[in-house]
């Protein structure tokens, strides 16, 4: 008890003279790049230049949407960007919907259309070598490394020296390296880590208008059961049921409207709110 009191006394004594000694300081990056999403910018103040930003999440969590928004915003701001696509999964049509300027985008496909049986290890190797070449060349506003389709097991096996090398290559430059993956793999080498989670999927039923701004969650009245009630009772009496006879109930909707996403800032830790909620529309 006495030790606590003495510590409190010491703190009160010192804080009178140096009031900032016990305050938590958040070091703001000197240069930032807007993510192109207002909610994410409010959460993070933007992506720091000369540093690595990591965006991770499970499949259909919205991580690719965040990455595309960053690239679209940067290309519209006349910055030359590069996308290292480890799995050749980039869709120019949805990027065009995000208003990306393709003349300022260098797309590097690490697996050609015919290389179906290329191992994930080989894709990772190509992706990292390509990213290294781009970062060493310099001059790019954003370099995006898309590892979203690489399995979590292989992503965790990436040696940390690569990340140190990337961080060393871009520090004191204005390049933003954004890494999209299934799990967090950059770790302490990243200046910022965002976890993206899908909260809900928005569907449009037949009576809804097609305006993305008028989205609202609506319980669909088109739940379909493919088995009559008698069959349901019969199923319950059966001790074993083959998968084909299990009653299947699903919702039949009109259109996929979009995704409701939650973005949580894992790093850096600060006193500000850590979560943001946004809507990614499937039909721009």
């Amino acid at each position: 008890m006495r030790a606590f009191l003495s510590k409190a006394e010491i703190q009160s004594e010192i804080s009178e003279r140096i009031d900032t000694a016990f305050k938590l300081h958040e070091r703001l990056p000197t240069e930032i790049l807007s993510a192109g999403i207002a909610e994410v910018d409010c959460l993070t103040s933007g992506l720091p230049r000369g540093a690595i930003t990591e965006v991770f999440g499970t499949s259909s969590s919205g991580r690719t949407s965040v990455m595309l928004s960053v690239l679209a915003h940067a290309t519209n701001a006349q910055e030359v960007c590069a996308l290292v696509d480890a799995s050749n999964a980039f869709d120019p049509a949805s990027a065009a919907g995000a208003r990306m300027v393709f003349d300022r985008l260098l797309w590097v496909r690490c697996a050609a259309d015919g290389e179906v049986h290329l191992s994930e290890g080989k894709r990772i190797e190509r992706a990292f070598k390509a990213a290294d070449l781009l970062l060493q060349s310099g001059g790019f506003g954003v370099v995006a490394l898309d590892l979203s389709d690489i399995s979590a097991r292989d992503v965790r096996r990436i040696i940390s020296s690569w990340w140190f090398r990337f961080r060393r290559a871009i520090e004191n430059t204005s390049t933003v390296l954004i890494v999209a993956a299934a799990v967090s793999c950059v770790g302490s080498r990243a200046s910022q880590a965002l976890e993206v989670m899908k909260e809900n999927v928005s569907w449009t039923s037949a009576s809804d208008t097609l305006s993305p701004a008028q989205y609202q969650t609506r319980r669909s009245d088109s739940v379909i059961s493919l088995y009559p009630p008698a069959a349901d009772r019969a199923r319950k009496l059966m001790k074993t049921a083959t998968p084909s006879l299990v009653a299947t109930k699903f919702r039949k909707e009109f259109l996929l409207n979009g995704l409701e996403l939650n973005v949580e800032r894992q790093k850096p830790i600060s006193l500000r709110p850590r979560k943001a909620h946004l809507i990614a529309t499937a039909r721009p």
Partner: protein
Amino acid sequence: MFASIYCRKIITDVSLADFAYAFSPLVEKTGADTLVLDVDGCELLFGSAYELANEVAKLAAKPKSEGGLSTKVNVAVAANPDAAVYAARFLKGITFISPGEELTCLGDLPIEALLSPEPKVQCPESHGKADREELAAKKRLHEIQETLDTLRLWGVKTFRDFAALPSKGISERLGQAGIKLQQLAAGKTERHLNLLPTIRNFATSIELEYPIAEMEPLAFVLARLLNQLCARLHEFALATNELRIQLKLEDGVSYERKLTLPSPMRDHKVFLKLLLLNTETNPPQSPVLAVSVACEPVNPSVLQNGLFIPRAPEPEKLELTLARLAKLVGADNIGSPELLDTYRPDAFRMKRFALPDTSHRKGFRGKKVKAQPAAIANQPCVAAFRVFRPPLRAYVETLHGYPTRISAPDKSRNVKGRVVQLAGPWRTSGEWWRTDGWARDEWDLAVESRARSTNDGTTSGPQQILYRVYRELNSGAWFVAGMYD
């Protein structure tokens, strides 16, 4: 010292300038039959000025097949070019005028010799100036004629008589034109030669003493040739955006490569790296006997960065990076995507990536176009789609036409589960007149995959993944086109 060559007859089939270049690179074409050469520094090659004049006369007398002119020429050597020209025109054979002895040789020439037209150089770029120069020449001739008429009235008949007159009196009566003519007569003019434009040759070659079979020694040879080429480009303040390399191989085949650059450059190190990267992808099949490199000279690009325009990659570094990326992943897998004007799904082409030119961007009525980042700042986030290339062959269980369960046997993508929500079908078809036309029914499916354990001991719960699935109408086969993420 200057040497003047005067052909006693007009030569049309052989260039007099080419003949003169054999003795000195500094040549002035005074007239169709007269040249002046700057022979300072030629002593090491030809000896004294008199020996050089003898050499010129001997070579000119030789047949054209041996590099001569097949005619006799007058050669005169003097300390100033005008004196050499008058001596060559009016004194036969070889004439050597020591400095200060011009009047001794030229003093007896009549003053009508001063009517010879002033030297004018035919520049290929000055077509438009030819008429103006001709008028000026006629005007000068007329003035000289008037001056000479005046001199004749005074009883001046030779160069010596004219040179003996007092300069002050000439200046008062005939003006500066008269002073200039008197200096010409006295052989005391000092001027520079109006040199002929040198022929620009941007090609270098070398024949090797022994065949080269490896890349490393070939790189040394290429480095030397590219260094010479770039030095020549630098000399004329030019650059190039096209390099051609030709290797003569031991088996008689000629190996040629052409390198096209998006922007003009003249850095020999960049050229060497690009050529080596290009050659490594398709190396020559036999040892190399000779190497030649040529380029097309163009004006260098002027790149002015704006204060508010973000910095872009340097063109030379970018070109090297693109070449290295092409070697790593293939040239077809790098570039900028371009959507094609068709409704075919996933229709795009890869075009060569080039830095956009932002220095001369102008919009309507010539106003400069500024970046509009605020235009997309207010746009909502767009749900991205990840394409499976190629589409995954899927096995779909359906009931009454609705997919209920899906399974795609692919190790990298775990597409398997129960359909919990779906939208569709949306029929799309097109280009039925082609053999590769498409007709399909598309569905957006929310597939719930069951919980699975991971390597680190945790268990991931069931998750809903959004896929776009389609069924081909022709074959009835199901495919997974991609995933919403």
